C-alpha cells in the first residue's frame, strides 16, 4: 500500500482538534505552552463543552491563549486570573472555568490571588505552566527558578543568600483545605502528554462536580529563556527540574 493510499479520511487516527483554530501560535519552536494548549483543546472537544467553557488567560507568554482556542475567554491583569475566575464561576456556575498561568503570574505577582482562591475552594481548574523563568519578558529569575540556575537576572546562577529558595507553590497549595486535586505533570514525551491530558480532564470534571479547586502544574521548558534547543531543553528539564518538582499526584480527594 502506498503512502497516498494510506492518507485517506477512513484511516485517520490523529488530527488537530477543531477547538484549536488555524491561527499560527506565536510561541517559540518547541515551547511547552503549545502542547498544553493542544491538550486543553482536545479535552474540551472530548467533553463536548466548547460552548460552555470560559478560560482566563494570564499575563506572560500565554497572554494570547485566547487567539488559539475557540472558547470564551477573559484576560486577567498579571496574576489576577484566580480572582477573575472566582467571579466568572460564581456568576455563571454552569460554565467550566479554568485559569491558565505561568510561574511568574501564579507564584510571584499572583501569589495572594492563587492562595486565597485555592483556600476558598473555588470550583475552578488552575493550569500552571512552570518553566522556572519569566519567559515573556526576557528570561528573568522567577520564584520557581532552581538553585544555581542562570537567568538574565541571576547570570551566575541563583544563590540562597541573595535570592532565597525555589518556591514549590504546588506543594503549598496541596496543604490548603480548599483544594481537591493537586498534581504535577510534564509534556516532554508521549506518556507525559497522555498523563497530562488525563489530569487536566479530571481537574475540569472536579470543577463541574463542585469539589473545590484543582491544580495541574505542568513542569515545562522555555528553550529561549534557557538558551537551549527544544530537545536539549526537555533533557535539561528531566535532569534538573524533575528532582526539584517531582511528577505525580500531591493530593487527590
Amino acid at each position: 500500500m502506498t503512502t497516498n493510499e494510506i492518507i485517506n479520511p477512513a484511516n485517520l487516527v490523529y488530527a488537530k482538534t477543531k477547538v484549536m483554530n488555524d491561527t499560527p501560535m506565536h510561541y517559540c519552536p518547541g515551547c511547552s505552552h503549545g502542547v498544553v494548549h493542544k491538550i486543553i483543546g482536545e479535552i474540551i472537544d472530548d467533553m463536548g463543552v466548547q460552548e460552555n467553557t470560559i478560560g482566563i488567560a494570564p499575563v506572560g507568554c500565554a497572554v494570547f491563549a485566547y487567539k488559539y482556542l475557540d472558547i470564551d475567554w477573559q484576560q486577567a491583569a498579571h496574576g489576577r486570573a484566580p480572582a477573575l475566575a472566582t467571579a466568572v464561576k460564581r456568576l455563571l456556575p454552569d460554565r467550566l472555568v479554568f485559569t491558565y498561568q505561568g510561574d511568574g503570574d501564579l507564584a510571584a505577582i499572583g501569589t495572594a490571588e492563587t492562595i486565597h482562591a485555592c483556600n476558598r475552594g473555588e470550583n475552578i481548574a488552575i493550569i500552571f505552566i512552570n518553566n522556572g523563568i519569566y519567559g515573556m519578558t526576557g528570561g528573568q529569575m522567577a520564584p520557581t527558578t532552581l538553585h544555581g540556575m542562570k537567568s538574565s537576572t541571576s547570570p551566575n546562577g541563583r544563590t540562597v543568600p541573595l535570592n532565597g529558595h525555589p518556591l514549590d507553590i504546588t506543594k503549598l497549595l496541596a496543604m490548603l483545605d480548599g483544594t481537591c486535586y493537586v498534581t504535577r505533570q510534564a509534556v516532554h514525551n508521549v506518556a507525559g502528554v497522555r498523563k497530562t491530558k488525563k489530569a487536566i480532564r479530571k481537574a475540569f470534571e472536579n470543577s463541574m462536580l463542585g469539589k473545590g479547586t484543582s491544580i495541574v502544574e505542568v513542569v515545562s521548558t522555555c528553550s529561549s529563556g534557557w538558551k537551549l534547543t527544544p530537545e536539549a531543553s526537555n533533557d535539561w528539564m528531566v535532569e534538573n527540574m524533575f528532582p526539584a518538582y517531582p511528577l505525580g499526584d500531591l493530593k487527590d480527594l
Partner: protein
Amino acid sequence: MAKVKGAVVVNTERCKGCNLCVVACPSDVLILNKEANSKGYNFSMMENPDDCVGCAACAYVCPDACITVYKVRV
C-alpha cells in the same frame, strides 16, 4: 500476520522545525527538510515513509498541532 502501516501529513506552513517529532518517532521516519517554509523554518517530513507505523507519537508531542496521522492494517 497483520501488519500496521502508517503515514503522516505535516502542515508545513504551521511547522516551526522544532525537531521534537523527529526525536519522538520510534521508527526514525521523520527528518527536518533542508528546504524552509515561508517563515524560514525547516519543516518536518517523512524520510522513511515505509517505516511509519501510525503510532502518532510525533503528533502527540508536536507543540503546534501540525501532524495528521493515518494508519491501516495490511
